[in-house]
């Protein structure tokens, strides 16, 4: 039986160097070099996801762009993925095409967000994903290339080119890639996916439109309230200096603080409830952040919460074993984009 045909146009180039030059010259990459997407490689990646080239993996809801398996595989090859990462890529594309994610808005916005991706379940280990040292940055091929694949799809399939559909004023470095895996083996708590309804043993991906992560540090206490107050303070600062609107925030908690929080008997639910109660500001506080021009437009005694409810907080266990560090990952723009979890 003949293999179904690929639909993409093909170009002859001398070698891998010239392939990269072609893609750079045409603006088909993020500026970093690409692996040439040849037919053999693209078919191998499609096979790893058990998909036909024309299968529609997702449809961007606003401009109705249909992301086919063929284009997803091309982007994954270009990004340097292993073929075995394709099921994660496919689940990720499906997740960002859910209407509540608002992919068009967060791509086009001057706010300049990036999709923040969290991988859970057995596939993390199968792909050798990094969950510990340098968890938010370079640490494994899979973390780096899965996140990058989504960026290349946004550029090439959705037209998310800077200055064109992507109108970000600044953007942030996570727009190259921003993919973490939770340290489930060394966490005292259920995984993020489990908390969002995914059964144990099933791999899943969660994605939220996020601003750049902000590191926090408090290694001077083992009191969970004190530790979490540091996260809440960073979130309050974000409410005042960036955006006051409530939505999903993520906190990434490294091992040293996890141990202290868990030793006090606190669960992820306790963390969410504490942060929900504490991460709120009065409108009048905008005056402390140079925003007095807008503070008076409404009642300055109004209180703004960072989270609409405790469930808006995504709690992720990741990071190296030493150091009282964590990170706050703020949302792009309140609840205009909501975090989405999809099984892999």
């Amino acid at each position, binding site marked *: 039986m003949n293999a179904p045909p690929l639909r993409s146009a*093909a170009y002859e180039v001398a*070698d891998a160097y010239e392939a990269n030059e072609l893609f750079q010259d045409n603006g088909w990459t993020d500026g970093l070099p690409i692996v040439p997407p040849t*037919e053999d490689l693209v078919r191998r990646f499609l096979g790893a996801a058990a998909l036909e080239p024309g299968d529609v993996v997702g449809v961007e809801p606003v401009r109705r762009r249909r992301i086919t398996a063929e284009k997803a595989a091309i982007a994954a090859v270009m990004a340097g993925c292993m073929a075995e990462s394709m099921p994660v890529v496919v689940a990720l594309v499906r997740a960002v095409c859910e209407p509540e994610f608002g992919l068009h808005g967060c791509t*086009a916005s001057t706010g300049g967000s990036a999709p923040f991706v969290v991988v859970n379940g057995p596939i993390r280990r199968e792909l050798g994903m990094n969950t510990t040292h340098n968890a938010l940055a370079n640490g494994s091929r899979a973390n780096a290339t899965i996140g990058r694949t989504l960026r*290349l799809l946004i550029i090439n399939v959705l037209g998310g080119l800077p200055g064109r559909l992507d109108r970000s004023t600044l953007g942030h470095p996570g727009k190259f890639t921003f993919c973490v895996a939770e340290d489930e083996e060394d966490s005292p708590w259920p995984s993020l996916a489990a908390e969002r309804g995914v059964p144990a043993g099933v791999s899943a991906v969660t994605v939220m439109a996020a601003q750049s992560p902000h590191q926090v540090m408090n290694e001077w206490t083992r009191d969970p309230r004190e530790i979490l107050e540091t996260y809440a303070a960073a979130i309050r600062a974000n409410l005042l200096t960036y955006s006051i609107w409530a939505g999903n925030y993520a906190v990434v908690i490294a091992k040293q603080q996890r141990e202290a929080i868990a030793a006090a008997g606190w669960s992820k639910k306790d963390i969410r409830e504490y942060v929900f109660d504490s991460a709120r500001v009065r409108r009048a506080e905008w005056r402390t952040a140079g925003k007095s021009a807008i503070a008076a437009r409404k009642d300055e005694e109004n209180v703004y919460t960072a989270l609409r409810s405790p469930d808006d907080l995504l709690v992720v266990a990741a990071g190296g074993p030493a150091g009282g560090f964590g990170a706050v990952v703020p949302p792009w723009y309140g609840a205009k984009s909501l975090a989405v979890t999809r099984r892999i």
Partner: protein
Amino acid sequence: MGLRVLDPRLEAEGEPMTMAAPLRALEGATIGLLDNAKIGTARFYDHVEGILRSRFGVREFIRRRKPDSSRPAPPELLGELGGADAILSAVGD
């Protein structure tokens, strides 16, 4: 030996779009003003409306505000603008 590499972009689908014919004149026209719901848009359109009315003789305006700046205008809202001879869409950040 060379390589054949595949185009990563999406192929165009559907019929090509064409530009609407330009208005012959603004005198007596009805102009739709689609507000993207950002904080400065209404004030900007007040200004535009004044200029179009006093200097170009525009007769009527249909002003509608999107419910959400980050999502497309709902079809009913676009339908209400359908009676205009031309529509302006502006971002008022």
